[in-house]
């Protein structure tokens, strides 16, 4: 068995080559996921790059990304496989019309064969010949009962189809599951996965992300943005600004030709960073002097 990555550092370096800045925790988990051949459950606040991580890993390893978007009501016919019922029926009809008296057994064997199988993302991921990164996105959206669908593939990399037998993986895909933690996932699922919590980045990493992702930004502004965002995240808000919102803000400021943020620019553009009225008001309050507030009231 050959491994995809040599060292934790290589993961980190390669990821940064495709534009994803990983910290020790992220790189370590990806590395370990490959070594132990275990899926990685990625959790954390929205907009911190959970889904992007899977995409970047796919890009970096040159693998195909197969994505299963989860939603309430997802079932096995959408996640694993489905028999092509209509085609099967047509087959039976054709058999009847052609008068060729094939036995029922033959027919049955025929209609429950590969030809009539519609593969869905999970089955596709393990049947693929090429290397694959499987992304199971927002797994907390499915009901707890539906999680069970995932267990077989996550622990053994195989899918059992009653009519066909067990389909085993041709290669072991790197699997990422993301969760926004709107509910507690089942123990069974957690046990099968490595766990990675991606939080908002710290000051240095955020600054780096801004400088890498926003072209034409000067470092000074980048630094200032990162610091303002940190201060805002420390306030008790309904929804703290995510990394993507930070980037939006940075891009806006660059477009506006701002080189240095003062209280005024911050107040005027903070609505890009924050999405709730009460949050915006709170932030503006923090950044203006008492005198200004008083003068506005008068």
């Amino acid at each position, binding site marked *: 068995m050959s491994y995809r990555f040599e060292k*934790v550092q290589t993961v980190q370096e390669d990821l940064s080559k495709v534009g994803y800045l990983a910290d*020790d*925790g992220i*790189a*370590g*988990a990806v*590395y*370990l996921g490959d*070594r*132990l051949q*275990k899926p*990685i*459950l990625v*959790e*954390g606040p929205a907009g911190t790059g959970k889904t992007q991580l899977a995409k970047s890993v796919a890009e970096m390893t040159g693998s195909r990304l197969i994505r299963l978007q989860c939603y*309430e*009501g*997802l*079932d096995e016919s959408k996640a694993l496989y489905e028999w092509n*019922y*209509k085609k099967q*029926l047509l087959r039976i*009809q054709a058999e009847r019309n052609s008068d060729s008296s094939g036995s029922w057994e033959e027919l049955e064997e025929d209609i429950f064969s590969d030809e009539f199988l519609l593969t869905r993302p999970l089955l596709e991921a393990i049947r693929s010949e090429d290397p694959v990164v499987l992304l199971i996105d927002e797994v907390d959206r499915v*009901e707890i009962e*539906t999680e069970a669908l995932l267990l077989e593939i996550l622990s053994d990399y195989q899918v059992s189809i009653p009519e066909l037998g067990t389909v085993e993986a041709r290669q072991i895909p790197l699997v990422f599951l993301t969760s926004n*933690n*709107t*509910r*507690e996932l089942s*123990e069974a699922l*957690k*046990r*099968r*996965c*490595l*766990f*990675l*919590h991606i939080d908002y980045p710290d*000051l240095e990493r955020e600054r780096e992300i801004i400088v890498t992702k926003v072209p034409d930004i000067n470092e000074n502004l980048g630094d*200032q943005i990162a*610091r*303002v965002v*940190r*201060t805002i995240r*420390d306030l008790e808000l*309904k929804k703290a600004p995510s990394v993507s919102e930070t980037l939006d803000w940075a891009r806006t400021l660059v477009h506006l030709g701002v080189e240095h*943020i*003062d*209280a005024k620019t*911050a107040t005027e553009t903070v609505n890009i960073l924050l999405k*709730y*009225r*009460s*949050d915006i008001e709170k932030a503006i309050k*923090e*950044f*203006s*002097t008492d005198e200004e507030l008083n003068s506005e009231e008068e």
Partner: protein
Amino acid sequence: MTETAQLEQHSPLLELLNGFIVELREAGLPVSLTENLDAVEAVKHIPINERETFKYALAATLVKNHAHWKAFETVFEVYFSLRGKEYELQDGEWDGSNAEFEMSDDNQSGQMPGQGGGQEGLTQEQLAEMLFQALAKMDQNMMRAVARQSVQRFAGMEPGRPVGGTYYLYRTLRNLDLDGVLERLLAQDQNPKETPDILEERLRKDEYEHRIDQLKKEIEAEIRRRLVADRGVEAMAKTLRKPLPEDVDFMHASREEMVSLRRAIWPLTRKLAVRLARKRRHGRKGPLDFKRTVRQSLSYGGVPADPKFKYPKPSKPEIMVIADISGSVAAFARFTLHLVYALNNQFSKVRSFVFIDGLDEVTNYFEGVDDITEAIHRVNTEADVIWVDGHSDYGHAFEVFDERYGKDVGPKTTVMILGDARNNYHASQSWVIKEIEDKARKVFWLNPEPRSYWDTGDSIVSEYSDYCNGIFEVRNLKQLEAFVENLV
């Protein structure tokens, strides 16, 4: 494989890992056997001297809930980090090369006082200056050195003294005058010519406060390191044990704990919403809808190519929350209000009532409010909940409820009563609950007191419990979660 061979040589690592996992379990983290094996596997791939990566690797295999991270980090620090080379004071303090995997620390306990060499000659002023410089330049090494120095100088640690780390931390910090340092740092950046931008000023302050926090952590680590050297790993880990967030008692939660509890409530209410509504919109199919299937089949020439199923109708639950907000359950009440607020966001029809000896509806306070603290403030100041003397009177409160709102309770209504049923020896008026139960879909009672206290003193739980569909002890998140799980 070379890695396995290496591991065999360093089997103290495995032993250490074992002790570590035992301690994690003692601290309440649910580490299963598979996870244990994963951790053993993981350390084969990541060398222990890459401290940070090693920590994250262990965390990835052992900690499956972010709320447990802090507990994990503390135990990790005690078991692994504090043995690192960068924490050594100077040669000779630690026993050279094999200190990393040494289990017994007994031989070091004697050296506790009076250690530290090179910088011993510093005066207090010099140390203060060093502290200032370290913070101004954000020099990690210097900070560590300052932390070491100040602990040694001010904490007054003695081997074998049965005092917790917080005491030493307090003593050290008291002598450092960090507030003064912060002022000095801020003053230093001040440009006298122009008035600084308010934002810039704020950012600078935050930055320095951040650095000071880091220094505090450094000092804490230093104290811990010395305590570990003195008392040994197991004992130290034991004294550092704190309840996990889900085990924190609502009645005695600290401010910080309240914050994390609040965060944990959201997913719970969502779960509650799903359980109560049991809506099965798509997916889970009902029985075959014969009529529609036949009709559909016409377009396929009579072949039922596209079977249709009946979908169960989703039910829309109404919830009424009746919460005691009297002094005896004050801490619980605050939590309760958060729960009510969260419920409001999940269900379209939530009505909330609060009472002490009178009862008032507070539904409006929570509607369209973005800021929960404001809503709570309004509940505490505006709601008319005092009838006579402001001591809980469940009986009277229920009577008022029945009189004013009793007619609104219908077969779709789920009633949740939150309180300790300590009635100050008033009449129970339990017939009201009986009446509600007859009309409502379900009546649940959540009691924040330990079960063993029920029906002692003025608690009259059992007078009501006959008429409830369920009465639950809910003192921490775990129990609240269990309640939600069992709703089905």
